């Protein structure tokens, strides 16, 4: 359980930003918390809120979540190799819900096989941080003056920058993918406004990632560095 505490603190601040964003996009406090409790993923949730705000189609919602969260499949796949024999199907169905970037990173660093008790403890504290952060962010977004919430709505994007800039600075392959994604997203926004927000994110991210993989294939197994 204590392994989850540093993750909890990070999640709290990111989800606070998410809560503010939801209010900004005219979602209710209940909807904001509902999304966080049922999804437990930052990027997917923000893209989901964009789709809801734009009254996008459900197909768009599914595709969006599929592309953005596809990496979890790989993490689940990798963790499934490390599970203790006591991890039966029932436990897998529950614990599978909590596979996020950070929880994956901590769990995969363990040398012992992963028991259900360990995984539940590791998931619980970040889950609480994520839900309570969203609630407080949504409440703050609801009661604070518009000028403050307007400024606070930058928080989430600021954190995204804090996640992508340091690895992009160190690693030119990541910089390449990040720049292509940003450029495509900007071009679609201004030149192809008929493409809705959710699809624009999918298209930009997939083209950037495939281009990155074609020109700079990754050799090591290091999938770390990125945050949830």
């Amino acid at each position, binding site marked *: 359980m204590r392994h989850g505490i540093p993750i909890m603190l990070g999640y709290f601040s990111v989800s606070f930003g998410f809560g503010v964003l939801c209010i900004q996009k005219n979602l209710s406090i209940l909807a904001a918390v509902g999304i966080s409790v049922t999804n437990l993923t930052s990027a997917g949730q923000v893209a989901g809120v964009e789709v809801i705000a734009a009254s996008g189609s459900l197909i768009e919602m599914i595709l969006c979540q*599929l592309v953005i969260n596809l990496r979890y499949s*790989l993490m689940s796949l990798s963790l499934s190799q490390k599970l203790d024999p006591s991890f039966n199907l029932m436990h*897998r*169905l529950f614990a599978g819900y909590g596979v996020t970037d950070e929880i994956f990173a901590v769990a995969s660093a363990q040398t012992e096989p992963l028991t259900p008790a360990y995984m539940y403890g590791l998931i619980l504290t970040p889950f609480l941080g994520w839900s309570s952060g969203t609630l407080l962010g949504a409440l703050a977004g609801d009661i604070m003056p518009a000028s403050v919430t307007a400024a606070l709505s930058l928080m989430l994007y600021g954190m995204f*920058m804090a996640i992508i800039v340091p690895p992009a600075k160190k690693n030119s392959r990541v910089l390449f993918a990040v720049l292509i994604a940003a450029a495509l997203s*900007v071009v679609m926004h201004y030149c192809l406004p008929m493409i809705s927000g959710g699809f624009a994110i999918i298209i930009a991210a997939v083209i950037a990632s495939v281009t990155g*993989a074609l020109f700079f294939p990754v050799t090591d197994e290091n999938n770390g560095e990125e945050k949830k």
Partner: protein
Amino acid sequence: MSVAVYIAVMAVTTYLIRVIPFAAVRGKIKSRFLNSVLYYIPFAVLSAMTFPAIFYATGNVITSVIGTVIALVMAYFNLPLIVVALTSSAGAFIASLIIGGIS
């Protein structure tokens, strides 16, 4: 369409993506290409979500761009997430007060 339907669809999709490999699949992904794509996806997604949305985040392009520049500089110096987020917001807020004071 009701927001609840969106949330339900979103939650089920995300859950299945995580649980299917966790519960069913055995063995590792060998394709170097696929592994590379999956490596780049999180960075590319965050980047595509941030730009150009960050330029409109506050509802005012000038204060948003000021916040963006602060976030870029702070992130460049490896400051923690929360510091980058708060200084960026604070910068935009101060800018909005100054603009409000002038006009």
